[in-house]
């Protein structure tokens, strides 16, 4: 019986995936970044972030042991922001600034309402804002409010730019026959308490929200797009707030995109 725990020590545990060092690719690509990473004089930004967002035992930066401090800030934010009651709206023109969930004719309406009110899901809206594009109206889901805020009406040119931001996909989202949900990270809401570590936590919250979305609504996920172009249409600065993911939900009767 071999003592090393494997019968045939000549079995290969992996295939060679790194080409010979003699192979030099002058055009930079993700693939060459991977291959050349041991000698790359400009290290990958993701590696730098990951290496420098570790929690160190003796760091002078106090990292809270749990999310309690976040929850206190979140509760204040939820209580105070958009604290409008029905009397605050001008009845004839209220639809210019808000629409009610029952007015949102979309298969996602019920779930978006849950996101605003269901305790666990609404808790995620501290780090992740949900923007909704219905027709050419850009709306924002407000935690614990029974209306969606009208952020912007997109004209034909903006709609065209938004569509163009998904150019690298084989099929672009069809905004006309679907509701598009943008998950937008609001990073400093966590980073002001957890530093760089907070950035990771926002990504994890976004993942949790996306998971719930896909479990309950028939949605197509878009993770790669030209970020800056989407941010610009959504009026996001790309730093404090930046879009992380788009979920496209076909309207009733429309086909789900592959």
């Amino acid at each position, binding site marked *: 019986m071999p003592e090393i725990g494997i019968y045939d020590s000549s079995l290969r545990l992996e295939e060679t995936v790194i080409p010979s060092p003699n192979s030099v690719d002058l055009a930079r690509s993700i693939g060459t970044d991977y291959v050349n*990473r041991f000698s790359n004089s400009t*290290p990958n930004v993701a*590696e*730098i972030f990951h*290496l*420098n967002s570790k929690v160190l035992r*003796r760091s002078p930066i106090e990292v809270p042991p749990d999310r309690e401090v976040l929850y206190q800030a979140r509760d204040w934010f939820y209580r105070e922001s958009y604290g409008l009651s029905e009397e605050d709206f001008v009845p004839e023109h209220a639809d210019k600034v808000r629409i009610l969930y029952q007015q949102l004719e979309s298969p996602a309406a019920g779930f978006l309402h849950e996101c605003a009110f269901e305790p666990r899901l609404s808790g995620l809206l501290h780090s992740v804002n949900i923007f909704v594009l219905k027709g050419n109206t850009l709306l924002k889901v407000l935690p614990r409010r029974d209306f969606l805020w009208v952020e912007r009406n997109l004209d034909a040119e903006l709609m065209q730019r938004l569509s163009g931001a998904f150019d690298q996909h084989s099929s672009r989202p069809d905004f006309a026959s679907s509701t598009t949900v943008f998950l937008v990270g609001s990073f400093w809401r966590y980073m002001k308490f957890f530093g760089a570590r907070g950035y990771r936590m926002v990504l994890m919250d976004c993942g949790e929200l996306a998971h719930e979305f896909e479990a309950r609504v028939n949605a197509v996920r878009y993770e790669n797009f030209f970020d800056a172009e989407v941010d610009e249409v959504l009026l996001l600065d790309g730093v404090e707030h930046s879009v992380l993911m788009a979920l496209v939900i076909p309207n009733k009767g429309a086909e789900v995109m592959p």
Partner: protein
Amino acid sequence: MNIKPSADQVQSVQEEKYLVNPHLRIVYISDDEIAVKHSGRSPSSRAVRDEGGTKVLGSVLRALTVPRALSELIHSGVVSESKRADLEGLVAYLLEEQILLKEGQDVVEVYLRSILGGKQALSAVRVAVVGSGHLGSRIAEQLIRLGIGALEVMDDRRVKRSEIDARYFTLPRALLQPGSSYAENLATHLRTIGTAEVGARLNAVHDKEALRQLCASSDCVVFASEHPGSVAFHAMNEVALELGTPWLAVSMDGSEATIGPLFLPGQSACYNEYEVQAESSCWGVKDEYLTYREAMARGDLGSEHLSLPSYSDIAAGLAATALMRFLIGGKAILLGRSIRYDFERLSVDTEEVLRLPRCPACAPLRAYRHSYL
């Protein structure tokens, strides 16, 4: 706050002499309530109230500005005999809160514990100081005055021009005889000001074998240089990474003082990562800066490297403070960060130092695993 001592606490307060912690100031609100302050904005400020209303708290603290035993307080009428039990309970509580001390306690140690929340006694710590020049000697002296248990200094330099050294060192002039060793002079001086075990090595500061021995026998190393060439710092970095020894870099360069970073091998950026980033951030004068560093490495600068004593004092004070905070088990305020004083421009900068994923000095020592295994 309810003052209820345990039986053990009461037992321990019988005949000792006590006094108010000299690092605290007591604001008397009433006989049963005080505010304990360290400074106007100190986070360690707190209120103490005797819920039992025994009226002993205020009068006892007023009387204990000088060391006194409890029996003296009773005999002198500060507290009546009928309140002896209240007095004993109160004193036990105030000792636990470090508002009162026993006579003879080390007041620096008391400060480190009561104000900074220190967990580790400095008297149990061994530190090495590499470089016994104008800067290193000051840091070593500060550490001795803070109560370091054992200190070893290392330097192979000797006094050449005693007039200049007499002006720039804080050592007694009598020690600075031409030809005498910096390290031995410093060790002699340190033995006169503290009880710490002090040793001296007469090796060059870039001697890796000597650095290896020094790191192996120390909890932490300070590398202090008035001549901030790269060679010695890289040698220290290599040895520290090999042995996992924490170390602090401190250097003077004319009117510039750089304190930190503190390097924790395996956790923080290493010296190479620091140097890469320090050089990168030197925009505008980068070419001449690099030329200067090369000349420094060759040792042909043609003059001694002098920094005003007052500049060295500031750098040494800050270095000793940062190291002390680290050694008592607190936060390492210079971890991944250096502070640069430019006394010529009168500016202070902090430099945040990132870890670099493939640093040739420290990355090879990290455990590596193929990304598909």
